[in-house]
């Protein structure tokens, strides 16, 4: 509640006409940025805590909350005799998605993307996630259905905005039928590129003609991915 109040106060300040139209002095504008960023971080922290509690409640019904991650041997086949694993993952926001940078999606072997639809009607939405272009990825929804996806290069002008963090590639897939005021999660796994001995190209190193051929190949046959 205190974090929401803080966000409300900052939003109140930013209703000032100078903040809306950009007629404030530069250092005032920078302070507005500092304030709204701090408020957003506070609220996303709160959202993370609340979502974590919700996840624990939903996935570990009637069980005491245990913080240890599940051991491989804990995977169960017979639910009556084997203990069920406890889930303790966090829900993090990536505030640099607008410059195609996100630490979790670029560095983790397995990550989950949860898409929350705030509208009162169902929508479908294309998800763009920054990833490491040296890997192949597999996107799966809760029905074990692999989802068609595409890895696409981000223009170098964009990565130059955040040269340390921006990965240069994005994973794109379609999230269908996001429920009204509800969410859907996707499980994303990265794998080494199929042709491990092939040289690792980056888009900028490849002549444009070759690039277009590769792209067409990807379009025509989804299973035959080029090495990059």
């Amino acid at each position, binding site marked *: 509640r205190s974090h929401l109040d803080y966000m409300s106060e900052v939003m109140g300040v930013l209703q000032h006409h100078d903040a809306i139209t950009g007629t404030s002095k530069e250092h005032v504008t920078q302070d507005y940025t500092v304030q709204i960023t701090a408020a957003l971080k506070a609220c996303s922290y709160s959202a993370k805590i609340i979502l974590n509690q919700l996840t624990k409640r939903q996935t570990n019904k009637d069980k005491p909350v245990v913080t240890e991650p*599940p051991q491989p041997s804990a995977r169960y086949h017979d639910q009556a005799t084997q203990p069920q694993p406890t889930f303790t993952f966090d829900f993090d926001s990536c505030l640099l998605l607008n410059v195609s940078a996100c630490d979790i999606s670029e560095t983790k072997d397995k*990550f989950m993307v949860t*898409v929350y639809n705030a509208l009162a009607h169902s929508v479908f*939405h294309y998800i763009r996630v920054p990833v490491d272009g040296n890997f192949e990825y597999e996107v799966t929804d809760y029905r074990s259905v692999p989802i068609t996806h595409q890895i*696409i290069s981000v*223009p170098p*002008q964009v990565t130059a*905005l955040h040269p340390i963090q921006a990965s240069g590639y994005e994973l794109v897939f379609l999230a269908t039928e996001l429920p009204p005021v509800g969410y859907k999660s996707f499980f994303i*796994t990265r794998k080494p590129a199929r042709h491990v001995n092939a040289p690792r190209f980056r888009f900028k190193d490849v002549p444009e003609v070759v690039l277009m051929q590769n792209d067409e190949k990807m379009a025509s046959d989804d299973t035959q991915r080029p090495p990059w």
Partner: protein
Amino acid sequence: NSNVVSIGNKYFSIGFDSKGFLNSIALDDGSEHKLSQTFFYYEGAVGDNRVFKNRSSGAYIFRPNSTERFVANQVQTKVIKGPVVEEVHQTFNDWISQVIRVYHDYNFVEFEWLVGPIPVDDNVGKEVVSRFMTDIKSSNVFYTDSNGREMIRRVRDHRETWNLNLEEQVAGNYYPVTTNIAVEDQERRLSVMTDRAQGGSSLQDGAVELMVHRRLLHDDAFGVAEALNHTHAIRGKHFLIFGKLNGAVPTMAARERFLQAEKLLSPWLFFSDVSSYEYEDWR
């Protein structure tokens, strides 16, 4: 004038000419229409602000000095086609680039532009605009959602309640755009939606322009006491809807409203590290 590259989906395809500029749009009914887009900039007026005619363009006032400069005669392009999205990456110059994007299942074109840092080595303030051109015969009329609610009818060089003698032909026809600006004739409608409030206008029939970035070197003496000297780059999106007005299902208005809602209240993304889990456990 012929297209050398095109990208599209089941709803439409857009073509690019040999210089890399957007050139046309072909709809699913087989009709093809002129549609171009480019960036240019206005040079900001400079004055001592003592009298009306000597006002500078600044934070409060958009006042070009009547000079309109195109940023490129030719655009470097890279085309990427895949099963989910097709993109054309355009580089106009060192400080303007853009991705034009057509998703497989979306009935609109996405323009993701990146502008800046605007160079001012020549000591000239610049106000950068993205302009869309069609052959729609809009008869001086265009529409903006300036109050954030309904589309308001605008007539070029005209005001509803007094006789106008317009001395600033460009700035005098600019209106606030909260999310949407559109032109139409009896048959077709072009609508460009924004991801943030911007200034926009239609200075020629069938054309729509939106101001995306400004960097000015003089104060306009209306209180801020600072030049609007933004030194950074800006990245943003425009969403273009083009279609026929009669008999379209869903209607153009419905398409615009749904897109507005989906972009202004777009889904939130949360990321979780699930390295410790197998898919079956997660499921």
